[in-house]
């Protein structure tokens, strides 16, 4: 559904930050983009969604497929109410009111935002703003979701609802690319992992393959395998 071929990408023309990042995401698959701080996760996401200026390569999105992006830092418009944000997002995807309204109400209820519809989200807490963005994106029922650090700032109930939502979307056939530091959640959720280090892909595959690659026994956690892989790289 989404094919990513980044030969190089960076913030300066002559200083590539990412090199040779190639992967594909299929429908009904959750892929985890894992890496230490500064490994290139956000740069990869920015390259995919088209906000990086210097990208050499090719991002191929299947025709007529819709992409939704949830950034790490909740971005909302200061002077529009939560409901106006929802309506605007639905407008972008040309969704009829009869479709988006029930979906929006259901999501708001799940994330405990009912009753806040006509308030300005600028005064919400960071967690509430994050929930607002989650509602905005999942309301659109996109074909591909790109989610940057989805669990940061969420309370345990909201985290549980988000995980259920991710599974629900996966079952619907959506493809999800998720960048995260929360490796235990990633381990449970993701079908495959793309491990980045210093702007390069150091591993692609599922947990079993990763355990094999790092000579770990079955049952070793993603965190330990990831640590081992990085240690190997250092030594």
């Amino acid at each position, binding site marked *: 559904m989404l094919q990513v071929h980044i030969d190089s990408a960076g913030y300066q023309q002559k200083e590539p930050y990412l090199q040779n990042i190639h992967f594909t995401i299929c429908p009904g698959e959750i892929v985890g983009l894992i890496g230490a701080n500064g490994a290139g996760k956000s740069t990869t996401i920015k390259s995919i969604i088209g906000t990086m200026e210097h990208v050499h390569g090719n991002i191929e999105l299947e025709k007529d497929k819709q992409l939704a992006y949830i950034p790490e830092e909740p971005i909302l418009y200061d*002077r529009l*109410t*939560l409901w106006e944000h929802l309506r*605007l997002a639905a407008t*972008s995807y040309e969704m009829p009111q009869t479709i988006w309204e029930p979906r929006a109400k259901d999501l708001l209820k799940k994330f405990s935002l009912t009753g806040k519809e006509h308030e300005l989200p*600028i005064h919400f807490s960071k967690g509430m703003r994050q929930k607002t963005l989650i509602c905005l994106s999942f309301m659109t029922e996109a074909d591909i979701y790109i989610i940057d650090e989805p669990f940061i700032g969420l309370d345990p109930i909201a985290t549980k609802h988000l995980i259920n939502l991710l599974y629900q979307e996966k079952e619907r056939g959506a493809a999800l690319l998720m960048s995260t530091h929360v490796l235990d959640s990633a381990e449970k959720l993701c079908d495959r992992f793309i491990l980045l280090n210093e702007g390069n892909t150091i591993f692609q595959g599922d947990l079993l393959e990763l355990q094999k690659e790092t000579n770990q026994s079955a049952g070793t956690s993603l965190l330990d395998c990831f640590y081992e892989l990085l240690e190997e790289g250092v030594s």
Partner: protein
Amino acid sequence: MNGTARTLFLKRLQSDYKNLWEASKLILDWTLFIYILIPGIAIGAFFYMEWLQDIPFLLNFIGWYGWMMILVISFFFHHIKLFTYLADQLFLSRNIPLLRRISQYGIVYSTSMMLLTATLFFIIAAPFLSKLFSLSLLSLGYLWLYYLSGVCLLTLWKKYAQIHISSFIIRSISIILILILWISLSQGILLHLPLWIMWITLSVIAITFVSDKLAYHGTHFLKIAEMDEQTRGKWVNLLFTNVRQQGYKPPSAKPIRLWKESQVMFQKQSSEMIFTDAYFKSFFRNLPVLMPLVQLTGLLIAVLIVSAPHWTGYLFWLASIYIIVDITKTGWLGFRFNSFIELFPWKESMLRGSLETSVRRLSSPILFVIGLLFGYLKFGLFGMLIFSIISVLSGIGLVYWHIRYVPVNHVSIEE
């Protein structure tokens, strides 16, 4: 410590100018230079020379105290920045000597800039004063220093009062008293040299005293920092950007007043109109953006009134049409390229439709008022009818001629 404070102050000054430059670049495009600034300066210079030859009746009619009132209005153009940041609360607010030194540099810098700009303003007004009231060069010199003392005294006191006097009434009364005193003594100081010497001496003492009290001394940190942040955000707000770290002030936590049930303000609820609805709401709910447009319209109307008797009035009228249309366009672009809006894909045709609708609907009422007024001043009731229609039609014409070619999307979505 002095070296650190100086370096920090210079860095903050540099960052202020950088932010101002970045913000200015958003609207100072080549079209504005070609159509507004260069002709504006040329027409302004021409007007000035023409008025000097034949002073308009109104400027003569207002008399000495009317002119002093104009000078007094200019007192409010200036402000003192103490160059404190809200982030200093974390690291510097307890380092009183360092922040005090930075604020002292800030006072010296702001005062110097104030003296420079006030002098420029006085130079513009001086030939009129000299001609209308037969003032000699020496008298103008006395008046210039008197004017500068008034500007400094009021601006410094205003800042001091904002920080240290919590009562709005006492603050306002003290400012009004200074202004009344300055206006009342203005004629006397030119006739009695000892009075002038006494005023200047007392002003210098007062300015020194207030400056000393104004520099940071460990209290009211947040108030000072917030005021500085607001001053930094002035330009940014005016130029329709949304940059919180540059002093942007978020909306208040009070419930919103306009369209409080989030209802769409238009009957037609197409994608185009919903996008336009969101832009209008963000515009009307944002006073720091709305007010400059109201102020600018007021200023344009004032310029039209003054220039209407001359042929150059037509040029101002045409320029006003362009300015209003261009500003409403800039506002829309500011909204469209906001980070939130950029999260979603938008069709080029929808965006273009929204831009054109927004510009037409926002600019038409303003252009109508400008046309009514200008038409009345030129040709009475008949002029009102003709010019209001021509103004609105010209605005619509500009939408087709100019706005239609403004890029609305980084990458157009395939339709």
